């Protein structure tokens, strides 16, 4: 058995070349959505589905899975070009950004029979970030949560302030099988270093989380994970904007 597991881990090595995601890593990540699209398309081609409702549902699954694959492709491209680009850091209202993300991903969650929401806040917060990168990170966490969550509990985006208001934490909470202590340790280690066989998400090499950590670093932020008894929260900590206090 050890030999088999060893081979499996070895196969996921080499995810990075000069600190950038390798073609192998990218191909591995794209296999799952493409394989699903292919299976669904073949079924539609065969004409085995008599119900129009079922056909429409399957077509919807194909389009949503394609969108997910395209998001991943776009994140990979962005990640590779990260070092060449200049990023504007600006004051951002995280509540507003997350409302947009919930609005965009809600159909995807609903198609999986899951709820997705943003925890409400009384007091507005402002943080310093690049809007595009932050959006990609929260989308990545949300996608991760969608595939990890179980039961009827909604996946929830939570926003809060820490360190006497100097840091803003944005987290995505899911309810599913708890990460094992070992997996969590490996994941933390990988998040601080480089990705490898960390299956925080089904069929995942951990590359998505690695990309998220790169995006976070580019904004002087940090991502992490909190293990709960009934799930986990993946989060990003970013510097709070002082603009709000000056108003």
């Amino acid at each position, binding site marked *: *058995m050890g030999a088999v597991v060893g081979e*499996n881990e070895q196969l996921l090595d080499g995810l990075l070349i000069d600190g950038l995601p390798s073609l192998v890593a990218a191909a591995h990540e794209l*296999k*799952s959505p493409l394989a699903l699209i292919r*299976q669904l398309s073949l*079924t539609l081609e065969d004409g085995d589905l008599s119900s129009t409702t079922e056909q429409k549902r399957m077509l919807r*699954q194909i389009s949503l899975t394609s969108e997910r694959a395209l998001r991943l492709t776009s994140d990979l491209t962005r990640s590779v070009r990260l070092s060449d680009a200049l990023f504007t850091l600006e004051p951002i209202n995280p509540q507003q950004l997350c409302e947009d993300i919930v609005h965009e991903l809600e159909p995807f969650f609903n198609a999986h029979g899951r709820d997705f929401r943003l925890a409400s806040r009384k007091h507005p917060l402002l943080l310093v970030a690049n809007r595009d990168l932050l959006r990609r990170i929260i989308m990545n966490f949300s996608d991760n949560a969608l595939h990890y969550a179980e039961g009827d509990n909604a996946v929830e985006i939570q926003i809060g302030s820490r360190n006497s208001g100097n840091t803003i934490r944005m987290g995505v909470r899911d309810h599913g099988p708890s990460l*094992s202590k070992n997996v969590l340790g490996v994941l933390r280690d990988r998040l601080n270093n480089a990705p490898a066989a960390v299956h925080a998400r089904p069929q995942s090499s951990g590359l998505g989380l690695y990309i998220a950590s790169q995006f976070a670093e580019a904004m002087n932020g940090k991502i992490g994970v909190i293990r709960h008894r009934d799930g986990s929260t993946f989060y990003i900590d970013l510097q709070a904007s002082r603009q709000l206090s000056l108003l």
Partner: protein
Amino acid sequence: MNVPSILIVEDDGWLAEQYARVLKSADYKTATVPHAQAAIQAIDEVNPNAIILDVLLTGSTAFALLHELQSYGDTGAIPIILCTNLADELSIEDLKSYGVKRILDKTKMIPDDLVVALRSVL
């Protein structure tokens, strides 16, 4: 005539649904679970004639489940069909001793391959 019962262990909900659709149309009874831990719990209830198993699962991989199944006489005899994106990297010879009878490549298989594989092992 007893309808064979198949346990599908697949953490992509839509793919699991697709497998179940194909197998039901071939007159198999199916149950679906998303990860290895749930599979262990479901086996007593479902009493499967075969298991269709993804490799990279949330939490433990399929190999942890294979190891667990082999620890018991009854579960060790259940034929396993691996359905994975990693088929190119796995060898049926290496996995035979863990009850794996077939390895299907998710990126190349056609829907009916599942039925063909099951018929060959049941």
